[in-house]
């Protein structure tokens, strides 16, 4: 799933660096993620993993790192881990 995540980040998160260069636990906001791009990334994740983020996950912490995003997706759709 982290590979898919990196692809989506490259496509939607508008970071100045490639997702490959970021560690799983690295702060995406510090790497340049804006709140605008975060929403675009969330929408892309919903589409790609066929999930819907509930309101409680729509906060800064859930989208702060690839690990935290993966944890959210995993909680919503455990089988996504394998994809």
């Amino acid at each position: 799933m982290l590979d898919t995540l990196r692809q989506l980040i490259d496509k939607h998160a508008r970071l100045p660096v490639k997702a490959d260069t970021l560690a799983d636990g690295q702060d995406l906001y510090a790497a340049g993620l804006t709140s605008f791009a975060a929403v675009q990334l969330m929408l892309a994740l919903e589409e790609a993993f066929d999930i819907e983020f509930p309101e409680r996950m729509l906060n800064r912490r859930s989208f702060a790192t690839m690990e935290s995003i993966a944890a959210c997706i995993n909680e919503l759709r455990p089988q996504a881990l394998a994809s």
Partner: protein
Amino acid sequence: MSSLVARAQLVAAVAAQYSDHVDKEGRFPSEAVRAMKEARLLSAYIPREFGGEGADLAEIAEVVSVISQACASAGMTYAMHQIKVSSVISHGDKAEWHQEFMRRISREQLLVASATTEGGIGGNLRNSICAVERLAGDRFSLVKDGTVISYGRDADAILITARSAPDAPASDQVMAVLTKDQYKLELTGVWDAMGMRGTCSDNFKFSAEGDVAQILPNDFGEIAAKSMLAICHILWSAVWYGIASSAVSRAQSFVRAEARRNPGQTPPGALRVAEAANMLQLMRSNTIAGLSRFATAKTNDDDLGSVGFIVAMNNIKIGASRMVVDIINHALLITGINGYRNNTPYSVGRHMRDALSAQIMISNDRIFGNVANLLLMHRLDPSLAA
């Protein structure tokens, strides 16, 4: 010491004497700010352990509103100072340098200004071009060009944003506190504006050197998201509510004077006063709702960082900034030529010009754009429960 509100009223009485002069000359409301210092209002928000009074945001908002009823430039200066102080309180309370800085604010009643804008960033505070350059011996230097610093020349310290390092992306920002003896300001543009003329929001080239310890520990993105945005919108709303209240009060006085002259007849403006009072109540509810939403969120980090919270705070600002203009326009319709003229007890021209700044202090269009994006994800909460 008397209550905060009682002291705010004293400051307002001073501010009222000079508000027209401040507006006309476009000068800093120095008498009002001196009165704030004498009344020790600049440290009201700082926790008691650092020499302040530990007031909550609702109390600060009330002080802002009381002063703004007399002079919006003085009220806005006080609000902007507290917005900066709040960043130090929320994000520097564990850092030794910032703890001592809070003690200094309390002791010396320092006025703190802000340098978050920069020439070339297109109005987006979450981007910086300038960067912190590390020097030997845990020192740093910083040069920021074309930054608007309200009351920059009269401030005792400035909170400034910059990229964390010369190779950091534009949004990887830090915020540093620099004191007057550490920075140099080169005036590059003079504030000569339609309203809010006393905030003296001149443009400067800012250059400074300081200790690395003066940089707030949290990155600016977090400071902006978790305290600055909300407090900014709430305290600005309190300024605008103060302006609106003052205009309605003048309109009401006008109608009452007319009613006394013609007993037995309801003056034509009376109905509009009722309408303006209705809008003023909405505006008041809006600001109070913002205060209570913030008080709830403050105790829960996830809520504070949530999309729903950002949407709510942005809506507080948009609501207040739109209503204030509408309300003052009503006051103008009521007072007519007496309100339109600048030299009557019913004048509302300064109110109107000051209030028009509300919709462009962080442009409402930009905020609507951000909210529009957030609403692609966030589902609005239909509950009336606070």
